[in-house]
Each structure stands twice: as structure tokens, then as C-alpha cells.
């Protein structure tokens, strides 16, 4: 049967080498265990130091002590050089110190590691915007808008889009800002303050239709909200819907007596409503009164602004506006107007001409002047 070997003795030198290798292996195992224990102690200490310094950095960053924060985060990174939050904190502190070049280097590194991170993309966008790198800023802002955010991602994305819109407005990129606002309007929902802000930004990009819609949405939730009311009035005014504008502005001016802007806009609207001879569903008498009113407003403007009175009717013509007004003035009354429609047209053309030239020569005038100008623009070519 089988004999079980109890002791195997290899001949020299193989035996010595095997024994030595076995000893070396054993020693290696023992040392590995020892160094592993040592390593745990070391890494635990390093982690604790990294956390301690990172915590101090966060506190300093919140308190806007950027110098101290930079020092703290650097100490933290010494013990945990891969710490994303410390690197980000350091970059933010450096941005706080206006050392965007240094911050950028860290952020680019972070971006390479996590290109989907919203905060990194937003910070890079801010740096690119500050450096006048518009394509870079747009790219990083858009990355940030569609990126991954910790915590309330929706709010962060929305805020980033707001930031992008403000940046676009600052560089007068109104069309791009408008498209971002339209995209934002789909995300906001019935939040009143957000809708009001949205409406105000739509007003800035001269998109009165969307602005009015936003304010109306806000008013549907809070019917007496003054800012929404005033904004809706302004938007309706911009759209040329003066009766609607009058409604909103009247309420807004009544709500807040200090709201001079709404009040002055309401003045203009009232004058437009009074002076516009092209309004629908008004009697002939009202229409003739409106023509007389427009003509009288132009007359006052000629008196207040002699430079306009001396201006020729058309470039190179012998007759000036003052003389033309004086010549036409006897005919502008209800009796003649009823008989001769052409007088009404000539009186309106002359008045619009006077107000347009006065606008460039003597600046803005009264609410009536502004109203006449608006009427002229509203019905230009009609």
C-alpha cells in the first residue's frame, strides 16, 4: 500500500534554497501584516486631518474668509489629495480671492475627473464669463444645467439657468437670453416670485407676450400682487393693448402710491386713450376731439421747443414746422374736420412730425407728447 512520507529531505543546495524561500515568504507575510496595521493607523490619521482641515475650510468659506479657507483646504488636500470637496472648496476660495487662474487649474482637473458635475461646470462657466470667453461660458453653463447636482438638483439647475440668463443679458445677447427664458418658463411652474422674475426678464428682452403671460400666471395665484400687476401693465403697454395696460396700471398705481413708474406709465396710457383718433368704436365727435388734442399737443411742443419750430417740414423745404402748424391751426376744428377729412390727416401728419423731431431735438416731453409719439408709431403706415 501507500507509504506516507513523514519527512522529505532534499539534497543540498535545493534544500537550502527552498527553506530560505519559505522563510522569505513567511517574513514577507509577517511584514505585510505589520505594515497593513501601520498603514491603517496612518490612513486613519490622514483622513482625520483631511476632515478637520476641510471642515475649517468650509467654515472659513462660508464666512468669506477666503485667505484662511485657501490655507485650510490646501492643508486638507495634503492629507486627502483626491478629495473632491476640498478641491472644489479650494477653487471656490480662490475664486473668492479673484485668483481665477489658479482656481481654473483645479476646476479643469475636477472637470476631467467628473465632467458631469454641476458645481464644477458652473464655476468654470463663471471663470470663462469673467475672462470674456463667451463660447466657453455658454458651454459650461449648458453643461451645468444638464449636469448632476447634489441635493435639490432642480433648484440648482434653475438657478444656473437664471445665472446664464443674467450673463447673456450682460453681454446683450438678447435673443439667446430670450430662448433661455422660454426654456425656463417651462420649468418654473406656478411659483409666484419666480413667475414675476421671469416676467421682468421677459420685459428686459422685449418679449412682452411671454412677460404678460408670466405676470398673468402670477396674478392667477395672487390676484393683488402689486409687482405682477405693474409688470402686466407694462407688458400690455409694450404690446400696444392700452386698455388692458390701463386696467393693470390703474390698479397698480392705486395699490402703491409710491410706484411712480406705474403712475407715469398710466398717465401716458390715459393720454393715448384720450388722444388716439384711430381707436375703434368711438364716435366721430370723439375722433375729431382727439385730432384736435393731438394737434394742440404738437402746438405746445413747438412753443416749448423752438428748435423744432424752425425745422423744415421735410429736408430742403422752405416752410418750417412752426409756420405749417400756424397755417393749419385755423382749420383744425370740429366744423372743418367734419367737412374735410384731408385736414384731419394733414393735422395728424404734422403733429406726428413735430413730436418725432422734438423727441430727437429736445428730449422727452409730457405724457401727452409720449402718447402722441406712441400713437404715431402704432398707426405708422396706416
Amino acid at each position, binding site marked *: 500500500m501507500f507509504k506516507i512520507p513523514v519527512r522529505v529531505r532534499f539534497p543540498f543546495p*535545493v534544500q537550502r534554497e527552498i527553506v530560505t524561500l519559505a522563510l522569505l515568504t513567511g517574513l*514577507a507575510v509577517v511584514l505585510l501584516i505589520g505594515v497593513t496595521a501601520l498603514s491603517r493607523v496612518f490612513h486613519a490619521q490622514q483622513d482625520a486631518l483631511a476632515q478637520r482641515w476641510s471642515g475649517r475650510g468650509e467654515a472659513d468659506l462660508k464666512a468669506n474668509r477666503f485667505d484662511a479657507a485657501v490655507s485650510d483646504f490646501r492643508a486638507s488636500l495634503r492629507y486627502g489629495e483626491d478629495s473632491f470637496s476640498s478641491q472644489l472648496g479650494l477653487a471656490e476660495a480662490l475664486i473668492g480671492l479673484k485668483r481665477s487662474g*489658479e482656481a481654473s487649474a483645479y476646476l*479643469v482637473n475636477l472637470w476631467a475627473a467628473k465632467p458631469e458635475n454641476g458645481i464644477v461646470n458652473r464655476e468654470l462657466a463663471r471663470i470663462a464669463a469673467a475672462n470674456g470667453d463667451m463660447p466657453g461660458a455658454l458651454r459650461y453653463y449648458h453643461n451645468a444645467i444638464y449636469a448632476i447636482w447634489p441635493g435639490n438638483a432642480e433648484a440648482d439647475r434653475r438657478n444656473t439657468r437664471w445665472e446664464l440668463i443674467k450673463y447673456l443679458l450682460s453681454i446683450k445677447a438678447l435673443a439667446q437670453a430670450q430662448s433661455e427664458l422660454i426654456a425656463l418658463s417651462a420649468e418654473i411652474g406656478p411659483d409666484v416670485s419666480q413667475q414675476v422674475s421671469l416676467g421682468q426678464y421677459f420685459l428686459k428682452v422685449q418679449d412682452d407676450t411671454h412677460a404678460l403671460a408670466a405676470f398673468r400666471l402670477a396674478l392667477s395665484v395672487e390676484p393683488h400682487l402689486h409687482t405682477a400687476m405693474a409688470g402686466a401693465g407694462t407688458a400690455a403697454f409694450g404690446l400696444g393693448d392700452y386698455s388692458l395696460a390701463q386696467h393693470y396700471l390703474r390698479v397698480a398705481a392705486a395699490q402703491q402710491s409710491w410706484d411712480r413708474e406705474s403712475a407715469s406709465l398710466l398717465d401716458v396710457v390715459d393720454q393715448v386713450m384720450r388722444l388716439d383718433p384711430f381707436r375703434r368704436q368711438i364716435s366721430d365727435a370723439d375722433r375729431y376731439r382727439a385730432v384736435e388734442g393731438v394737434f394742440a399737443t404738437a402746438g405746445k411742443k413747438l412753443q416749448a421747443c423752438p428748435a423744432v419750430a424752425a425745422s423744415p417740414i421735410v429736408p430742403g423745404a422752405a416752410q418750417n414746422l412752426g409756420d405749417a402748424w400756424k397755417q393749419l391751426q385755423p382749420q383744425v376744428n370740429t366744423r372743418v374736420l367734419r367737412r374735410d377729412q384731408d385736414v384731419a390727416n394733414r393735422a395728424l401728419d404734422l403733429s406726428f412730425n413735430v413730436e418725432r423731431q422734438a423727441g430727437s431735438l429736445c428730449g422727452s416731453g409730457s405724457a401727452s407728447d409720449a402718447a402722441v409719439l406712441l400713437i404715431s408709431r402704432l398707426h405708422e403706415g396706416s
Partner: protein
Amino acid sequence: MGGGPNIEIVEDGQRESISAAGHPHLQALRTVFREERFFLILSVFIGVFSGLAVVCFRFAIEWCRIYLLGSGTQLSTSRLFLAPTIAGLVIAVLAIHFFPLARGSGVNQTKAALYIFNGYIPFRTAIGKFITSALAIGAGFSLGPEDPSLQIGACIASAIGQRMRLSRDRMRLIAPVGAAAGLAAAFNAPISAVLFVIEEVIGRWTAGILGSVVLSAISSVVVMRWFLGSESLFRIPPVELKRPSELIAYAILGIVGGLASVLFGAGITYFRPKFKGMAPWTQYLQPAVAGLLIGLIGYLGAPQVMGAGYEYMDEAIHGHFTWQFLAILAGLKILATLLSFVSGTPGGMFAPTLFIGAMLGAAVGGAEHAILPHFAFSPGTYALVGMGVLFAGFLRAPMTSVFMVLEVSGNYSIIVPVILANTFAYVISRALQPIPIFDALTRQDGLELPSMEEQREENILRVEDAMQPPTGPVIDGNETAGGAAQVFERTPKDVVLVRLQSLGWSNISRDEVTTLIKEGKGGERIGSILENRQVPALHPDHPLDMSLRYVDRWQVVPVVNRANLRELVGVITQRDVLERYRDFGGE
């Protein structure tokens, strides 16, 4: 006994002997344990042990720094002055009384072990190096952990070799194997470590040693990464060469780096013997005074120069300093390293060299950008290239310098600027300082180790330098002995080459032909007669030394074309060789 080793199997008091000659497992064991293969296995163990030692060394340095200088980046005034001064005193006592061989960087000691002490390095040196270097670097001396790691690795390898009673040849080679392991673990860069050891310590590429060096380097890096992670030394931002004209800027960096290398090297070689030559009692104070002055530099606003400074290199790479401050840091680091090294404090030169290079590179890049704004400026790129420049100019390891930069950056698009700048720095440094720093230090210590640079640059004689044009006749192998006799009638030469049919060559003398004729073999083909007496052929590019193997045995040795072995391009004789050597000695 004739059959090979035996195995004794003992059971229940019975003993039986089995011949191992035919046992397949034992045959396999014997093959495995042939010395060269066993050496490879040992290399892995050397790598593991060196890796573990380097990991512990890194822990020790970090703990020393935390407890001596504090954990933050803002150092308190008292620590700035007291830590390096007191540490300097302790280090001096340890180095003078307990570990005298721990002084210096460690590279030369490893070379000395290879060339003078047959691979023997006392293990005590490793302990001393570990303690004193960790204390020095942790306390803020401007020294690095790489060269000590190299020496610790070499010491471990030597200890294992002694324990294994390796042959003298293997013992000589074992220290560099450990050195590569130590350096690879310290740098987290196995390729650079292997290259450095081959380039600077061993000085030659041989298959036997290369395998062991690579194995030990890789195993040590694996161990190191297991404990400390696989991140490279620096976090490199994306770097690229945008326009070829930027190469001019890198060439300027190479020139500035070359000059800085010369300044740094000249400072060390000038001051080191002066400090060593001072009264013996001053040796106790030199590291302390050096530490105090380094603390003063830190107090005056440049604490970045204290310690190895890797974190500050990282900051320079990320553009955290103005170019003016970077230039100041480079200058102060040279001063701090000079103070640290010439005072006899144990520690390495690699990290300070990289620090100076990084600062200088980023400073030169920044200055160039300030003067010529259209040059694209990336501080990371310039800092990296600067590191390579100082490595090539100061340590005079051109190959290692290129691969080191590539390995720590992981970006191969930087290779062109690195090669260009390193070449400039290397050439300038060689021209202004003919003796490399490690060789100069060795000679100051009274040792005459082979200079690897001199070996690389050595002009070797080749066969083409001594061969003569093939003016004599050549007999074809198909010729008969009678025909050969006619050839000899037309030439005064006593020996003529024979071109054999089978691509080979032989030769025949006048006397041999005469004898053949007398023996009635005049009709036989010369080729068949000389078939078993082939003369080895040389090629023009062979080293002339190689011809010495043949010229004493063969009167005329053919030199043939490598592309056509039947085409004779020259002949060489013993006299030609000796005359060329005599002339070369005169040159």
C-alpha cells in the same frame, strides 16, 4: 553518486533512498533553482521587501513632519526655527556615532557596493538612513526621500544576497536590483527607476540583470501602490503643444535650466569639501546651523523650500504662484539644498532637483509669456519640462529625465518639448561642468568609481578602424589545388583567403598548397579540402576588441558586408589590430 540528488523518505524508522535522477518533479525543481532563475525569484522578494520599507519610510517622514512642523500649511515661528535645528543636532549625533555610512544621497554608496565591496552594504546603513533621512526631511531639511529609498532598497537586497550566499557576480548585481526597487517605490515610476539604475549605477544593458531589475521595480511599485494608492506624484492638468514655435520657449528653458544645473552642481562640489574639512567638533553643529538657516528662509516667507516640497511642485504646476515668486523659490531651494547637503545631513537630491526644475520651468514660462504674450503659457507644462531639464542637467541622466517626465505626467504629447529642453540642458551642463555631480562627490570621498557618462561617451575602436582594403587575390572554393598554386605564383602573399561555397570563408597558405601538390592532390577542389576549417568573418562595425578573439589563431581574418556575406570589404591581421591600438593610445 552518479544519478543526481537523492531523496530520503523516512517512515517508522525505516529509511529508503530513491534516485532523483529520473524523478520529473525534482528535475523541474533543479531547473527552477539554477542560480539565474533563482536570482529572478529573489528579485521579486527584494522588490516586496523594498516596497514595504519605502512605505514605512514614507509614513515615518509624514509623521515626523506632522509632529515636528505641524499638520497645517501655516507653520508657527517657534516650530520653524526649533524643529530643523534640534533635528539637525540629533541627526549629527546619530550620523557621527551610530550610522556613519548613512550620510550622503545613497546613489554613490550603491555604486560603491557594486564596484568596490562586491555588493556588500551593512544592513545597519539602511536603518541609519531610514531614521536620519525621515527625521531630516520631516523636520524641513531641503532633501528628498528617493535616494535614501534607493539605498535602503540596495541594503535590503544586499542583506538577502548575503543570507543566500550568492556567488560574487550575483552579489555585485544584487545591490542595483534593490536600488531599482527602492527608487521605483519612492517615485511610483518603475520605468524611470529601471532606467536610472541602468543608466547611472550599472551602466550597461544586459539581459541577465535587466530582468531582475524590472521584476524588483515592478513588485516594489505594486506593494507601494497597495498601501499608498496608485496616484502619480503630481496631478497634471491637460498639457499640449499648441504651436511648433513654442519650442523656442522650451529651448530657452533648456538653456536656463542647464545654467542653473551648473550653478547648483558647482555650489555643492565647492562647498562640500570645505564643510567636510572643518574642525571635527563642527560636524555636530553643521546640520543644526543648516536647519536654523532653512528655518530662517521659511520664516522670511518661503516655507515652500522646506522638506521634499512635492505639494508645492503641484501648486506650481497648477499656476498658484507668480513667475517672479517661482524664480525666487527656485533660487532659495538651491540655497536650502546646498545648506542641507553640504552640512552632511542624510537625504536625497532627486526631490530638490525636481522642485528647482518645476519652479524654474514655470518661472521661465511665465516670464516668456509676460515678454511675448502670444506664446501660449501653461504653467503645468513648463513646470514638468523644467523638472526634466534639471534632472538631465544636474543628475546627468538624460534618458531617465525624459521617461520620468512622461511617467509622472502620463502625457506623451509633451515628449517633444521635454527632449528638446533636456538636450539643451544636458549639453550646456556637460560643457560647463565636465564631471557629473555623482562622480564629483565620489572623487571627493576618495573613491574612483567608473563614470557612467564617461563610459557612454567613450570612443570605441571598431574593426573598420583597423582593417586593410582587400588588395590580395581571393581563391574561389571551386578552384583546384593546382589552380591555387598558380594564384600563389602571381602574389607575394603567403596566405590567401578562400571563398567557400556555403557563404563561409577560409584561408590557405603557400606551404599548404605546395604540400597538397606534392601529395598528388593537385586536382582536388580547395573548397572540399577546407570545408571543416572555416575562418570566422567580421563586420566593419564590430568592436575591434572582438577581432582579438580571432587574429591570433587566423593570420588573415575576412571583413565582409552584412548584406552580402560573400562580399569582402577588407581584411584584418593581428598586426593591424595592435598597430591601431598603439596609435589610439597615442591619441
